[in-house]
Each structure stands twice: as C-alpha cells, then as structure tokens.
C-alpha cells in the first residue's frame, strides 16, 4: 500500500471524479463530500510520497507504471513517475490548494452553476488530477497528455459561467492549443534526435553524444520553451488570462488562478534543469541575455495594466501576469539564489493568489460586486474576510512575516548577486505599484471619500452608508474557514520558510548553478 503512494495521488481524484459523474443521476448533494474526501486522500498520498522522497538517499522516488522495472527493461519502456523534491513540493501545493478550494466550493457552486454540481465536481477533480500528474510525471509525452487534461478541464470549468465566459474561453482554447501543440512538436524534435521519451533518458542521450549544438535540439529547445511560455500566460501571450479568470465562476477562478500558471513554471524549470541540462539551456543558448529584458517589459506592462483596473478580480489577474514575470525572471537570471527565489515564489504565490481569490469570492458574494465603488465600509461589515484578503495583499507586497517577503528577498539577492540591475529595478518598481494597488483598495474600503475626492459621510467615521449596510454580517462559514486557512498558510509558509528553502537547496545541489557571489 505504502510503496505506491505516488500512484494514489492520482487515483483518488480520478476515481472521485468518476464517482461524481456516476452520482449525476442520483442525489446532487453527495458530490461535495466525495470531492473533499478524494482530495484528502490525494493529500495523504502526497504527504506519504514526500516522506518517501526525503527518506530515500538520492532524494527521488521513481515509479514505473505497468511493472516494467528498470532492472529488466530499458528505461522508457514504461511510463515513469519521477518524483524528486521539487515535483513533490509543487504537488503538495497543488493538492493543498485543491483541498482548500474544494472545502470553499460548497455554496458558490450551488448558486452560480445550479443543477450542474456533479459535472462541476467531475471537472474540478480531473483538473486537480491533471495538475498533480504534470508535477509528478517523468515522461515527456505523458506530460503533454496531462497538460491537455488540465487544459480541457480548465476550458470546461471556465466556460460554465456566462456567455461572456464562453467568448473568453474560446480565446483561451486557441492559445492553449497553440502552446500545447508547440510543446508536442518540441518533444517530437527531441524524439527524432534522442530516440527516447523518458526525461532522464533524454538528458543522458544529450549528455552522451553532446547533441547540444545540433540544429534540431536548438529548435526543439525553442519550441518547448515558447510552448510553455504560452501556456504560462507569460507577457506577450497573456491576453486570455484576465478575461478568462474574471468571467469564470468564483470557484473556478479560485482553483485555476493559483495553480495553472505556477504548474507551468514548474514544467519550465523541470525542462531547463532536468531535461536539457543547465549548460545546454543557459550557457549555449543566448536566452539568458534577452530574457530578463523581456521579463522587465512583462512586469512593467502587467503592473501598469493592474493599476488601470477598476475591479478586484481583473486587477488580481494582471497581478498574476506580473508574478509570472517575477518567476520567469528568477529562473532566467541564471543564478543559484534566483532559482531558489523563483521556486519558493511558485509556492508562496500559489498561497497568496489563493488567499486573494477566495477573499474576492466572499466579497463578491456579500457586497454583490467586486467593483471598487461597491466596497466602502467592508472592514466593519466583514472584518475576517478583509483581514484574510489583506494578508494575501500584504504578502504580495512583501511585508515581512508573510511568505511573499521571503520569495522577494531571494529574488532580490539573486538579482544583486548576478548583477542583473534591470531585474532589481523592476522588482522595486512593481513592489511600489503593488503597494499603491493594495493601499488604494484599503483606502476605498476604509475611508468615506468618493473617487472625485469629496466627502461622502459627515466626517467622524460616518461612511455615508446606511446602518444596515455596515451591520456586521460575515460570509457563510463554509467559505470563511477556507479563507482563514489560506491566510494562515500564507503566514505559516512565511514563518517556516527556512525548512522549505533547505529542501529546495537539496534539490538544487545537483545542478551547479553559478552562485555569482565573488567575495
């Protein structure tokens, strides 16, 4: 039972979703507990695998489906799940966020997509299966199939919203397909040169007859990386993200926003480090020169666009694009600390974005709008929700006890040590923008001043709202507790950041990334 815990991570949500589909006929109410239970089971599998990974001496668990063990069959005959520290950490983030959103989803699903609960939970669980599978798989083609599983469920979950969501999803389908197909083409080019699909196998063949300088491999590298950048909503290809996440039902955006882009960044890191190898991806190709400048453009534009928004979820969507810029920058400044910062930022950004989107969902439910004008007096009306929301906000700004500070800390260190001043400057600029964004929001909620600046109340704290509007009425408990859970996770990850960073350092030990610090 224990030794194939890694398989249980995927089996639980898969069979949970099928159970939800079957229960379509029966009672509607049973889907929610089934979803939560399967997520709990998956999380148990994840933790169990983490124990195994940490216990094993070379810190990896390799599990081949179909019994084609390595000793009697060449590597790559069966599909191999190659879980090392980085992949199991990201899997735990995926499963944790999935569990919290599953707990959160009880009421909003019933209200926003009445009559389709069981379909919703089926797609929800399959989405989590796809994402967890992406983090664990060690086979390049299997990764494509899992990316498609995650993408298709994502299209379905988003398009369940209004007709406006359908229009936004169409855009997402086109872009997603281009990205996934380019990745598939890249894997094809790798296969034509190396003859194997197993990631470790590919790495060995590239090392063995140093294919790095062959034209096909260069093009394969470009195709794979561009494909993943498209899927990741990196700046020039981010057009689908704001529309998709704003018009989607609340639970969908709370599930997709924290996970989809982060998992794709994990895929990029996996491709750069484990498949192509450090010197192939960073030394030979000239990406490391122009990529940070692209990141600078990405973060600046995303931050400016976030400033222009008048609606919380759209602002958060542009913030996600900016955060993607952070992580891509962290990877491409080709530095030990930058990589630690980028990996830690994947984890912390997932928690932060989850916290913010859950809060936005609650605000939407209670204040009937997430538009900036409708938020006045929410501090007194829903204090817990607002504290949860703004813990996420402070974490994005990077105030100390939260996890955002530490990821920004490592990114700054990486930028400094690798002498990438443009990356540092853009980090500072975007922090400023995020300070303005969130405190503008606090101001809107806290003060009784209209946008054009004239007083609304009679001063002395009268917010110009009726008593009934400022009466204390929090959101339902089933939505509030997950938000508080998410906010506390943000703080806990911040407080125990050293343990996570040590794990990351163990993972990065085997790649000799330049430390760049010449004392």
């Amino acid at each position, binding site marked *: 039972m224990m030794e*194939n815990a890694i*398989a249980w991570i995927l*089996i639980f949500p*898969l*069979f949970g979703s*099928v159970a939800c*589909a*079957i229960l*379509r*006929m029966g009672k509607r109410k049973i889907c929610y507990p089934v979803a939560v239970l399967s997520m709990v089971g998956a999380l148990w599998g994840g933790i169990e695998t983490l124990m195994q990974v940490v216990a094993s001496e070379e810190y990896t668990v390799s*599990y*081949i*489906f*179909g*019994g*084609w063990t390595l000793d009697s069959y*060449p590597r*790559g*005959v*069966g*599909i191999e799940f190659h879980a090392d520290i980085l992949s199991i950490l990201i899997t735990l983030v995926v499963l944790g966020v999935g569990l919290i959103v599953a707990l959160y989803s009880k009421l909003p699903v019933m209200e926003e*997509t009445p*009559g*389709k609960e069981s*379909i*919703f939970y*089926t*797609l929800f669980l*399959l989405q989590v*299966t796809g994402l967890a599978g992406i983090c664990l798989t060690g*086979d390049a*083609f*299997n990764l494509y*199939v*899992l990316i498609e*599983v995650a993408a*298709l*469920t994502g299209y*379905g*979950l988003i*398009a*369940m919203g209004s*007709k406006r969501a359908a229009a936004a999803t169409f855009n997402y389908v086109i872009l997603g397909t281009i990205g996934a197909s380019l990745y598939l083409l890249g894997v094809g*080019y790798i296969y*034509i*040169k*190396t*003859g*194997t*699909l197993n990631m470790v*196998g590919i790495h060995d*063949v590239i090392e063995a007859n140093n294919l790095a300088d*062959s*034209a*096909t491999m*260069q*093009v*394969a590298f*470009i*195709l794979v990386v561009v494909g993943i950048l498209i899927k990741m909503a990196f700046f020039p290809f981010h057009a689908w993200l704001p529309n998709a996440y704003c018009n989607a039902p609340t639970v969908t955006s709370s599930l997709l926003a924290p996970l989809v882009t982060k998992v794709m960044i994990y895929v990029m890191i996996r491709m750069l480090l484990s498949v192509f190898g450090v010197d192939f991806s960073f030394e030979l190709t000239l990406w490391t020169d122009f990529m940070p400048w692209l990141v600078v453009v990405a973060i600046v534009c995303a931050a400016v666009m976030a400033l222009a928004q008048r609606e919380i979820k759209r602002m958060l969507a542009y913030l996600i694009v900016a955060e993607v810029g952070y992580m891509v920058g962290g990877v491409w400044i080709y530095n030990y600390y930058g990589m630690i910062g980028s990996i830690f930022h994947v984890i912390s950004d997932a928690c932060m974005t989850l916290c913010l989107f859950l809060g936005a969902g609650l605000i939407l439910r209670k204040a009937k709008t997430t538009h900036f004008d409708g938020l006045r007096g929410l501090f007194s009306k829903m204090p817990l929700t607002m504290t949860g929301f703004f813990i996420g906000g402070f974490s994005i700004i990077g105030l100390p006890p939260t996890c955002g500070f530490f990821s920004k800390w490592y990114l700054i260190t990486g930028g400094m040590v690798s002498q990438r001043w443009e990356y540092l400057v853009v980090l500072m600029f975007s922090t400023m923008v995020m300070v303005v964004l969130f405190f503008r929001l606090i101001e809107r909620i806290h003060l009784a001043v209209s946008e054009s600046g004239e007083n609304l109340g009679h001063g002395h704290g009268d917010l110009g709202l009726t008593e009934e509007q400022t009466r204390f009425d929090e959101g339902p408990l089933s939505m509030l507790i997950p938000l508080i859970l998410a906010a506390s996770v943000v703080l806990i990850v911040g407080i125990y950041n050293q343990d996570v960073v040590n794990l990351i350092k163990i993972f990065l030990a085997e790649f000799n990334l330049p430390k760049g610090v010449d004392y």
Partner: protein
Amino acid sequence: MKKISLIPVLVVGVLLLYAADDFPEWGNPTAPASASSLSSHFISNTGVDTEVPNMVTAVLADYRGFDTMFETVVVFIAGMAVLAILKGSSGPFSKNKKYTSSIEPDLIVTNTVRLLVPVIQIFSFYVLAHGHVSPGGGFQGGVVMGASFIMIALSWDLETALVRFPLDKCFLVAALGIILYGGIGLLSMFLGGEFLDYAELANILPVSREMARYHAMLGVEIGVGLTVTAIMFALYANLSTEGKLKGGL
C-alpha cells in the same frame, strides 16, 4: 490585420525549416529514433512480453497504458465539458425551434439504415476484440459503435436514438468504461504489482503472466470502447441540439 499575423507564422516556418535539414535521412533504419533501444525493444520483445502480435496495441494498452488511460479521461472530459457548457444554456439567438418533423424519415434511408446498423455494430465488436492482431482497438471500435447510434439519429430523429441510448445512460457507460480501465489497474496493484501491471493478474487467472497481460489488454480495450462510444454519441446529441436534446439534424 491579416498581414501582421503573417510575421509570426513566417518566423515559425523559418525556424522549422532551419531544423528540417538537420533531420536524419528519411526512413533509414539507423536513424536515432528507429534504432533506439526503446523502439527496438518494443519490436523484438512485444511477442515475448505480451504475446500480442500487434505491437501498436501492445504499446498502447500495456507498455504505455497510463497514457491511454489519460487519453480515455480526455475523451470523458470532452463529453462532460460539452455537457457543462451546453446544458440549460439558452440565449437570444438560440434556435429553440420546436422540432416539427416537417419531413418524416425517408423510407429508403430508414430501411437501409435498419439493415446496416447491426452489421456496423458487429464490425465494431470485431474491430475492438481483434485489436490485438489486426489494426484497430478500443478507440476505433468505440467510434464505429458510436457512429452506428449517430446513424440512427440521422436517419430517424434524435428521440429514437435517445430511446436506444438515453443520455444519462451515456455518461454512466462512459464512467463505467474508465472504472473498468482503472479497476484493472487497481486490481493489479492490489495483487502486489505497480498500478496497471497486468502481469500480476496471473495470480488469479489460470494463465501465464504474458497471457494475463494479453487478456487484461482486451479488458482495457473494452473499457476504452465503452467510454468512446458513449462520449461520441453524447457529443453528437449535445452539439446537434444545443444541449436541449430535441430536434437534431
């Protein structure tokens, strides 16, 4: 606007052509892809490992069985997503034309279809079951079976097809397909092997380990066939009537 979008297309084109001349020559057996240890193992050992003559089906269902399971899940997702999008959706421009069967089903068409459908369905069973030896297998068999139901819907109207294969049953059958596939994998896991390790089924089946794989593959193909049949028909039913399951073509 069209001209501007030509630029990225040309850039990609140049990129691909630049790599094209570096490919190994066309079809020579010593190219890395064909001569790699992986594909030569498949060709030489499929007979030994799984006793299945059709290597493609062997690799599809056994060696890379996990891929195929997720492929079935992709089909299942397509069906569910289409249902999710179109269920109960109506807009100002939706063609909720009442189904007035102005033309009742044409005599010749209905009769030929009545004769053809059983043959098609037998052929689909053949394709599914004989996937081990001749080209074919779960997907192709399932689609042919689904096509037979669609043919009924085309010739008569959707209601008669739905009488034979109601939509709720569709999704039940689809789910059962995946459960069958996953179930075989789980069973082999409970019997001590990894997930989807069919050889372990030899403990309960009175056959050798290779033959256990042979039969397990058949079971898996049936699972895939069930799912694909149900989803293809559900896809057609939903798309042709915008989810209202009335009318159709």
